[in-house]
């Protein structure tokens, strides 16, 4: 892990209903290159909102997000270009149902990166090979299981060769027996040095793969530390309370 800061979040605010609801209330965080940051917290704590602000799927009410040295919250910033470098995996996979798996993966690289269809397909096939789904290249999303869909969603993002991957509760919509196969892919990705921000309820994953755990509650970061420190010696009352309920 290097100290190179990839994403710098400064006093991030996200309000709804004119400030009556503060989903994010002054969040400061840094994501370093090659780091795996796991965000945990009770529901409604703002952890998903925080993640979705990082690539501006949610528009922050205030504060700044600096990605690779660019302030992406600046209205003049070309967010579409920055998003190409920030892969995102959703709870509900969001594969494109009207396209084959292969087309799901090659669409963005061919349209946005100017890759040839052949080049993009070779890359996609290599990635499918890695997650053991190369035989499903011609299938449609509806023909796959949840675990398969999520693995495809992950490699679809990887086709854009992102610098960071954002995971928004990637295993929450899966049947229990399929959680493992998705976490396995994520673990491999972490081992290869991919920068990852993961919102999850999988504490085992946080402990094993995370370099750092951020605990959020009420739109604020309550505590952040190494997984060992958070899980074995939580400092804050909120953290202890939350962990006692789920561990």
């Amino acid at each position, binding site marked *: 892990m290097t100290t190179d800061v990839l994403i710098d979040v400064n006093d991030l605010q996200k309000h709804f209903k004119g400030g009556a609801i503060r989903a994010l209330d002054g969040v400061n965080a840094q994501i370093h290159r090659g780091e795996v940051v796991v965000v945990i917290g009770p529901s409604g704590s703002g952890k998903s909102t925080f993640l979705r602000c990082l*690539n501006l*799927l949610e*528009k922050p009410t205030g504060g700044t997000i600096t990605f690779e040295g660019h302030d992406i919250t600046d*209205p003049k910033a070309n967010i*579409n*270009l920055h*998003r*190409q470098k*920030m*892969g*995102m995996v*959703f709870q*509900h996979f*969001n*594969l*494109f*149902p*009207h*396209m084959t798996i292969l087309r799901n993966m090659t*669409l*963005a690289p061919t*349209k*946005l990166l100017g890759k040839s269809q052949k080049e993009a397909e070779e890359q996609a096939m290599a990635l499918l090979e890695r997650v053991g789904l190369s035989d499903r290249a011609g299938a*449609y999303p*509806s*023909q796959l299981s949840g675990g398969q869909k999520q693995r495809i969603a992950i490699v*679809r*993002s990887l086709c*854009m060769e992102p610098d960071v991957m954002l995971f928004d509760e990637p295993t929450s919509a899966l049947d229990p027996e399929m959680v493992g196969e998705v976490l396995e892919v994520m673990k491999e990705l972490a081992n290869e040095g991919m920068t990852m921000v993961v919102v999850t309820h999988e504490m085992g994953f946080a402990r094993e793969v995370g370099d750092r755990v951020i605990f959020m509650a009420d739109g604020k970061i309550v505590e952040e530390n190494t997984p060992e420190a958070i899980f074995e010696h939580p400092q804050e009352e909120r953290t202890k309370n939350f962990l006692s309920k789920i561990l």
Partner: protein
Amino acid sequence: MEWFQTLQADFYLNFIQDDRWRYLWTGLGNTLKITFFAVIIGIVIGVVVSIVRSTYDKTYDEMQPGPGRYLLWIGDRICRLYLTVIRGTPVVVQLMIMYYIIFASSRNSLMVAVFAFGINSGAYVAEIFRSGIMSVDAGQFEAGRSLGFNYVETMRHIILPQAFKNVLPTLANEFIVLLKETSVAGYVTIRDLTMGGYIIRGVTYSSFMPLIAVALIYLTMVMFFTWLVGRLERRLRNSDH
């Protein structure tokens, strides 16, 4: 067998004698011409209006203040006005307004009818497309944007193909309605299929043969298009087993 001979004579009188079938034949040609070009105009208008309307609904509140936002607001208001007026008045009245007022100097009644029916159909197609766009899961839009596609690219590659598939049955129904609605084209001197039957009736003084023939021809066309759309639907459904 007396009734059969009467029927035969009736048939001869209405269709064969003086080549009266030609009224139906040229009428059918005009009906198809009007429908075909009106469908094209309707789709073009419908796509544009539905995109303006749904873009407004989806993005206006989040947009940065500026000329773009203002333009979108104006566009949305124009589209709403168009929808209200077109859907609030009968197509025959619109047709006559087009022919006798707006294009009063034009003698090309067929072209006027194409515009009138196209503009009319566009309003209904717009609302059909808009419901299709809104029916696509918001996650699809987010997935597209998160890959780096801009709003227009996401619409084009991800949202519209799915929206089109969702609305195909409703859209087909709209075209069937349009095909039959063109039967009022006679109001502006067009000899369409219905008018063809009406002219024969005026000459032969018999109602049964020409009117039933006209009805059967419409029915056959509608059944054919229904079958065609059914095939298209089955092909598009390949992706969701």
